[in-house]
């Protein structure tokens, strides 16, 4: 298995808060690269696993990450990501590596994502009103609980609690904190992408990210990849063969794919709560413009 080091050479971080569309983008890139006659398999192995993938980390470090204290792990993760690949021919296509952690710096000053050469990242963001609904389904919790989690600066995935031991703990911060951490990270060549643009203006959004990644971006090829990675296709494949990244017991991973489905789900009180908690960041990203606005747009003070 190739073990290229993310953040160095041809690897680009694909960062996002959960349920913001990173899987969708990965499927698009997979189809763009394959340029096949049929849609690519949603369950196909992609090369590099998510940054928090425990077996990968254990392999690079040579010890059990499960035996490390949280602070020790935070200091070692950047060194794992910066470790150069065993000699592999430099390939034209960059490797996209998923990460849900908020961007952070360990107590010894190392950025979690490492210092590898030419640190590049695509950061995907989605309206927190939609994220709240999707996250609730994903975690099999109530929407109110999801809203609480999204507001909690201490929220982490695979924390000390049950279950997903296959990944190390990923601190998310609050939803706003997560956005700020990546968009404000120093020294990062960052391409910001909105889920809503992928859904409503796919040609432009996907061509833009393809260019950023140094991938082919001619209209026809992109359009085909967009089609092969379209929601209907992804959902169809999940129905037939399941999707190995699905976590929820009750909900499909490719569940709805709509941009405005939250309108039918969130109560006015829930909308109000989310907007109150995340207004500055939402405003910066254009989520308080137009009919979605619940309060006057603030004078621009970046969060």
């Amino acid at each position, binding site marked *: 298995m190739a073990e290229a080091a993310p953040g160095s050479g041809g690897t680009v971080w694909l960062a996002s808060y959960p349920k913001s569309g990173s899987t969708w983008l990965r499927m698009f890139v997979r189809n763009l690269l394959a340029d096949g006659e049929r849609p690519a398999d949603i369950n196909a192995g992609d090369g590099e696993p998510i940054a928090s993938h*425990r*077996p990968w980390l*254990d*392999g*690079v*470090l*040579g*010890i*059990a*990450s*499960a*035996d490390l*204290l949280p602070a*020790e792990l935070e*200091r*070692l993760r950047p*060194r*794992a990501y*910066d*470790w150069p690949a065993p000699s592999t021919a430099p390939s034209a296509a960059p490797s996209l590596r998923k990460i849900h952690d908020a961007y952070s710096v360990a107590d010894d000053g190392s950025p979690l994502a490492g210092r590898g050469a030419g640190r590049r990242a695509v950061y995907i963001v989605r309206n927190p009103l939609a994220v709240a609904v999707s996250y609730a389904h994903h975690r099999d919790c109530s929407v109110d609980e999801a809203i609480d989690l999204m507001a909690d600066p201490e929220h982490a995935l695979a924390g*000390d*609690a*049950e*279950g*997903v*031991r*296959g*990944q190390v703990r990923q601190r998310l911060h609050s939803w706003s904190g997560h956005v700020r951490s990546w968009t404000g990270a120093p020294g990062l060549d960052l391409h910001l992408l909105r889920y809503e643009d992928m859904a409503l203006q796919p040609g432009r959004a996907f061509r833009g990210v393809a260019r950023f990644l140094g991938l082919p971006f001619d209209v026809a090829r992109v359009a085909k990849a967009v089609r092969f990675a379209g929601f209907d296709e992804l959902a169809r494949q999940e129905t037939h063969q*399941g999707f*190995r990244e*699905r976590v929820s*017991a009750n909900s499909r991973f490719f569940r709805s794919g709509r941009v405005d489905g939250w309108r039918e789900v969130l109560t006015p009180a829930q909308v109000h709560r989310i907007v109150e908690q995340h207004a500055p960041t939402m405003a910066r990203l254009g989520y308080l413009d137009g009919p979605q606005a619940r309060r006057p747009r603030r004078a621009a003070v970046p969060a």
Partner: protein
Amino acid sequence: MPTTSDPAAAQALRHRCQAYGLRIDSELELPELAPADPAADDGPADVRIVFGAVERDGPADGSARAIGPILWARPGALWLQVPGVAGFRVEDGERITVDPDPAADEDSLRLFLLGSALGALLWQRGATVLHGNAVQVGEGVLVCVGASGAGKSTLAAGFARRGHALLADDVVALDDAGRVQPGLARVRLWQDMVAQLGIDSAQLRRVRPGLAKYTLPVLQPVPQPLPLRWLYLLEAGEREEPVVTPVEGLKRFALLRAHAYRPRFVEGMGLAAQQLQACGRIAASVHVARLERPRRGGDLDALIDRLLEDTARHG
């Protein structure tokens, strides 16, 4: 950490114990290991564990290659640097030198010593080392391999609870004859797994300070090596029942290779050919299958029942 140049005192600091068929002399106390048989106490130890200086970035003479951000290796030797805990140097299958960081506690030292360092030593001694757990079933051994976090230790604890002896948890050593050597007879479990097994974690010792992971002593040590008969790859799946799928042909060999203990160590110490041959031999005589356990919920006893059913059919 206690060190001394007084031979009499040095003698007193020596802890003689055994594991993996080896007599071990250790300057660091190793309560998890069985004490050596006093009748066989004479004679030199097979392995010595000593405190001493270990180079922090691999050997200064450059004789070893960096194989990871905290690993260096060459044939017959491996260096591991766990920041804030210790440096370890493992040599010639006979000697492990431990260089603790000033604030390191003994539990933390033991954790990495009895995992990665000991695993490297066993490779150096010519064993085939797998990352998994080994339990006794009848007169043979069942080994469960799988990715970190797949649930191997919980499964081993479940077997132990049902009266099966545990040969190894994490570091499984096979000899040339395909026998599993009895290693450390204990499992280490996260808090929630301990609770799931109905045990009060307050009664247990933490694996190291600050970690909510506990040592479950398993009081059924196995006195001698036993033949490996069944190897299962444990994975989480979407189905609601455990499913066993046999692995045939070359895939058996590939599976064994893929679940070597710390593959990087094998490459770094030039043991790839040795490992290939050993895996070929083992694959020929062992029943190999995938065990898919339900990702959510899932009944540990049902899983074990399904496994035992399969072992009975492929004895």
